[in-house]
């Protein structure tokens, strides 16, 4: 072992390392730093014993304190559920009409429904529940399957044209392409427009009257008022799911679009479906 070299200027020992004549002084770390460092090592040993730390083949050590962040989340979720349980139990036990009539329950259900809506419904009906072509606006007062809160609940619970539920809302308008010639379909379209507005030609609309009566009135009504029993939309109001122009109406007569919605009862549970129904109802169009 060679003798330790000391720096002439400072009197501090060098490490013996030298680069281009520059020598490295061997100043020790401050004691407080070193002791803090040792303390963290001691702490880390205790920590890995107390908390989950060491990876094993398919899991990890659980730690003597038995702490788990997943268990903590579950605990917090359970606590949140317990905090809401009073309201949720009452909602589960009440009819939607009763919920609507009770100020406190309605407010809770409406807020909870809004949260459920944002997760499950916005994808089709939009964040403002305004829908879009083919997806109904839930704010307005035009309801194909009924706008009372119970009817809304029924629709949400069982869906529309949903394969997975025998109680689902179902309607199927036949496609008239090939059944009626295009000229006749155009006349029917003109007649349909005349229920609520000005057709492109009054003559055309007049010619469509008998065709409408023969082919459409059974479901949509003599004056186009629609029939909720069959899920036949009103043709006499200002709201059109697939467009209001004669061309769009004619296209719908030739080959109707049939929108679908899954039934949510199995997935969300009765209470959440009720909350959703109350929320949709209080958007303003509820009957």
């Amino acid at each position, binding site marked *: 072992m060679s003798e330790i070299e000391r720096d002439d200027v400072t009197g501090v020992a060098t490490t013996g390392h030298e680069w281009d004549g520059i020598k490295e002084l061997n100043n020790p770390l401050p004691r407080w730093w070193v002791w803090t460092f040792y303390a963290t090592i001691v702490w880390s040993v205790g920590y890995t014993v107390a908390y989950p730390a060491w990876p094993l083949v398919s899991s990890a050590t659980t730690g003597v304190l038995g702490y788990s962040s997943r268990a903590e989340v579950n605990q917090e979720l359970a606590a949140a559920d317990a905090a809401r349980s009073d309201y949720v139990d009452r909602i589960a036990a009440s009819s939607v009409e009763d919920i609507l009539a009770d100020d406190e329950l309605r407010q809770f259900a409406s807020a909870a429904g809004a949260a459920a809506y944002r997760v499950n419904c916005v994808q089709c009906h939009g964040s403002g529940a*305004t829908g879009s072509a083919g997806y109904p606006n839930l*704010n*307005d*007062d*035009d309801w194909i399957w009924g706008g009372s809160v119970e009817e809304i609940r029924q629709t949400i619970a069982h869906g529309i044209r949903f394969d997975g539920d025998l109680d689902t809302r179902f309607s199927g308008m036949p496609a008239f392409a090939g059944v009626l010639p295009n000229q006749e379909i155009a006349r029917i379209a003109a007649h349909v427009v005349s229920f609520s507005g000005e057709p492109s030609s009054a003559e055309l609309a007049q010619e469509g009257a008998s065709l409408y009566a023969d082919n459409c009135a059974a479901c949509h009504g003599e004056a186009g008022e629609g029939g909720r029993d069959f899920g036949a939309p009103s043709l006499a*109001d*200002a*709201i059109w799911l697939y467009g209001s122009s004669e061309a769009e109406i004619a296209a719908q007569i030739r080959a109707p679009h049939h929108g679908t919605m899954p039934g949510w009862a199995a997935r969300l549970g009765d209470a959440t479906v009720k909350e959703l129904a109350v929320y949709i109802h209080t958007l*303003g*169009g509820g009957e």
Partner: protein
Amino acid sequence: MVTVYDSSAAVERIDAQAINSAHIRQPLYAPRRKIFPKRVQGTFRRFKWLVMLVTLGIYYLTPWIRWDRGPHAPDQAVLVDLANRRFYFFLVEIWPQEFWLIAGLLVMAGFGLFLITSAVGRAWCGYACPQTVWVDLFLAVERWIEGDRNARMKLDAAHWSARKIVMRVGKHTIWLAIAMATGGAWIFYFADAPSLLDSFIHGTAAPVAYITVAVLTATTYTFGGLMREQVCTYMCPWPRIQAAMLDENSLTVTYNDWRGEPRSRHAKKAVAAGRTVGDCVDCNACVAVCPMGIDIRDGQQLECITCALCIDACDGVMDKLGRERGLISYTTLADYNANMAIASANGSTAPDPARIRDADGKLRLDLSLFSIRSMFRFRTAAYLLAWSLAGLLLLYGLLMRDRLEVNVLHDRNPQFVLLSDGSIRNGYTVKLLNKVPEERVIIVSLDGLEGATMNAVGVDGPAARSFAVRAAPDQLRTLRVLVARPADRVDRPSEKFRFVIEDRASFETDSYTATFEAPRP
């Protein structure tokens, strides 16, 4: 001829040294030098006891004052109800949106502090600051248990003994008890005091109550008992700000060296040797009593909190010597300069005591001494005006504020809804603020927007131009209001109208201008 008093027998010199003297001042991060302030008696000491009594009395007793506000509001005179977001102060109840009143009070406090400082210097620091008051209290406890300055110094230097342990444990126990009472009193401002005290004692109070008490106990004990003057010197910004508030007419605690210098411990000998002597006998009484541990004779210093205890100490010594009081006094810089000019013949020589005394040895009559007039000047008048203006505006705002308010939010999405009959509907969130602790019936109606009708979710009745709802005492009621207008009346994409609310019992009304949106024609 200067009269020389035989002072050596009457006044004992105290071995005291200012902690910040230039010749012993250490570099930064030097350990603290302990201070053992000596007991003192006198006018300012009595005044400080009085201020302590009043301020502590206000602090500890206020939460226990009861104030009847009827069945729907708490009966505590001063209450910050964080849970319900209300602040009660005797006759006044404010909601969070009226917090500007508090901001106004802070503006007043600011101007008040400027006013006080420019008139009488750091009076806040010396008398009313909680740090000063609690340190004073802690020192009184220390003195009661361990004795006065010399006894405490001796005890501090002594080895640990049973006596020292008992004294120290006793002192710190009482300090902690005071600290805990301080923190304890604080939480009573935030909840009903009697019931909180009960639940606090039985261990059933909210955790935040215990945490608050623990934190305030720790800070009070640390700041008041252990750190003391260091808080003022190193932590508090006010000593640095005050320089901007002071001018040559502000009263500050001043050592009048124009009459004290040259100081002499052995005045008789010095005179016999033909030297001039001032009034200061260099007894160090002013240093020994100083809670900040400084020597006021070194001139104005940022450490000085102007508690005026050195004035009391020096006045006592002057009384003993039969000389005029006021060697250390509340003095303005202007007065001091005028007197110094006399004593030093306009700065041509060192101060000579002979110049300020007449032939009989009395202080000359043309010396500038304390005058109340120094407090009345443009600066203080301006501060007073600003303070009064802020106060009057606050009072006006308080008296004229609405106790019934309406706020309206238009739905963001959708902006409007087309209904099946072609009419257009807009949705609004209408908030009714009933700020009195009584239930009211509030009538909400539309003003403008001809032909429109409205419904509120959860309020029965046909669509109409107005409806009535109940608003619970001291509560906000949120309504979802749907305003619909027939297609033939909608001619503009955006039209202003007002929601008007009215309490027909008290004739209070309020309104909110909202917008009715519609598709472009």
